[in-house]
């Protein structure tokens, strides 16, 4: 990571619709400077008299050098916070904190990487692909979503990737099905050394299972409801097996959001596994 996160009030440079998604580009040099692929930002929503107290987290999709440095993120409207964001216009200001989180670890030597994205999860993969390619890596994409308009970045993937495989649940684009249905083939064909994945938890679990079968590492970027994004509220925890073999409830915002897939206990997300450190009636040391 390049330095610690900062809070900035940035001006919205452009807003655009990308199929089912909205994209906002915000002038925020201090965030752009510190950016690494896999970082996210949190955004205050609702304006100065807002009843919405908690910031919303978004993966950084892109940074550009314009105006000293801009940050772009991509989102779909889910509730009132994202609805408010969808109404922002150029020249409005946005209050951002970032860059946050543990970015994607990069391979030391050139290798073959499969990048798997589900829904808006693919947003963070293109800057990653860029860095990987500049390090001499081969990049293959697997992108999926429920329907064609929710597959983010298919064109860019086709431009950048050695191969690009698309899946939709309704078959409106690429193969009918889920990314996990095609992943094994892609890994085998590309002789992949490592997989990077970002998307819904269920997808990450499936992707991890495939990678475990192949015996290759997978870096997953998880999503958990977050109140602070900076590691102080403890609301975003996931059960993760540490190097010492002990399961701990660790923060997705600062210990993650990127974890080694095999260490995340996907089946136990939303519970306290009985064998986690400090579990009720469980292990205490």
């Amino acid at each position, binding site marked *: 990571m390049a330095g*610690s996160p900062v809070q900035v009030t940035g001006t919205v440079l452009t807003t655009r619709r990308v199929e089912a998604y909205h994209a906002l580009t915000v002038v925020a040099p201090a965030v752009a400077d510190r950016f690494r692929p896999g970082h996210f930002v949190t955004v*205050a929503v609702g304006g100065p008299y807002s009843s919405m*107290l*908690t910031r919303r987290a978004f993966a950084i999709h892109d940074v550009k050098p314009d105006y000293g440095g801009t940050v772009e993120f991509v989102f779909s409207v889910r509730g009132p916070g994202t609805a408010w964001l969808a109404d922002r216009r150029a020249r409005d200001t946005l209050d951002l904190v970032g860059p946050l989180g543990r970015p994607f670890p990069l391979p030391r030597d050139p290798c073959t990487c499969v990048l798997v994205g589900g829904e808006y999860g693919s947003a963070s993969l293109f800057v990653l692909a860029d860095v990987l390619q500049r390090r001499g890596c081969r990049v293959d994409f697997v992108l999926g979503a429920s329907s064609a308009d929710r597959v983010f970045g298919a064109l860019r993937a086709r431009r950048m990737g050695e191969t690009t495989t698309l899946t939709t649940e309704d078959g409106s684009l690429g193969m009918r099905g889920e990314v996990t249905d095609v992943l094994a083939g892609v890994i085998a064909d590309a002789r992949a050394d490592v997989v990077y994945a970002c998307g819904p938890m269920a997808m990450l679990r499936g992707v991890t299972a495939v990678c475990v079968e192949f015996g290759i590492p997978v870096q997953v970027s998880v999503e958990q409801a*977050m*109140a602070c994004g900076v590691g*102080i509220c403890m609301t*975003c925890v996931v059960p993760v097996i540490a190097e010492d073999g002990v399961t701990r409830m660790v923060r997705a915002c600062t210990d993650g959001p990127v974890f080694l897939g095999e260490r995340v206990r996907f089946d136990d997300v*939303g519970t306290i596994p009985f064998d986690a450190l400090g579990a009720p009636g469980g292990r205490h*040391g």
Partner: protein
Amino acid sequence: MPVDLRSYLGHVELPNPVFTASGCGGTGRELAQFFDVTRIGAFVTRSITMAPRAGRPTPRMAETPSGMLSAVGLQGPGVEVFAERELPWLAERGARTIVSIGGGSVAEYTALARRLAGAPGVTAVEVNLSCPNVEDRGRVFARDGSAAAEVVASVRAATRYDVPVIAKLAPDVADVVSLARLCVDGGADALSMINAPLGMSVDVDTMRPSLAAGTGGLSGPAIRPLAVRCVWQVHAALPGVPIVGMGGVMTGRDALEMVLAGACAVAVGTALFHDPYACQRILRELEELLQARGFDRLADAVGLAHRPAGAGPRNRIDLEESSL
């Protein structure tokens, strides 16, 4: 002219009255990325327990109008790891650390206080009384005056004489004043108010409680009127007892509201989640507001809203307790 911002908890002098609220400032290291934790009045730790705790399942938080619900469940590494790894980090930097403790029985609180009595760098001990008493079918200590007083008395006895003990109270009790009085009689040197009252929300799409734990603590500006009321009532009844006011403090104006109601210090919780610089900003804003009102010393503003009514009908305060 700068305002004299010193604040006193019993005999302990603090350079200024802005603290973090327990459970809202991490270990200190996270906030140190944003501001110097030694510059605020005190850093209050999350409630430390004897054994490590994994806490509650997720989702642990839900947003509510001008507030949030949380149910973290006192996740933490336990007092040993705290004393060996977290406290020294704070102490080395010169932060004033108020250690919050949480237990399931009087014995557990006492043991925590004993363990901390030997640890260097403890400025004060805050007793989180909103923990379920395992010996009373999970009733929280704060809902039972005598249990609360017993905890406070035993923590006081186990703590070094020069380390103040602060009792932390919640608003969802029948009579916060009598509870405060019992805690002070039990030996509390100061009071901290308010802990988050119990709330809940139901997700109308999943048709299930939003939090895995069902209920959670309600924090943020939504509860500020409850906090100001508790501070006001307790300061009126026990004017000599230092009060750390908290609950929805987002700005210097909110901090000043607490001070005028009777708080000699103010803790910042949920605001930190929205603005990681909140403590420093609030401190600066509070100083400016005091200056603009001609105060030389913070102490002169504490409880000022209680002063006998001046002339004019707007100044008449009538304190019968009914809200209607």
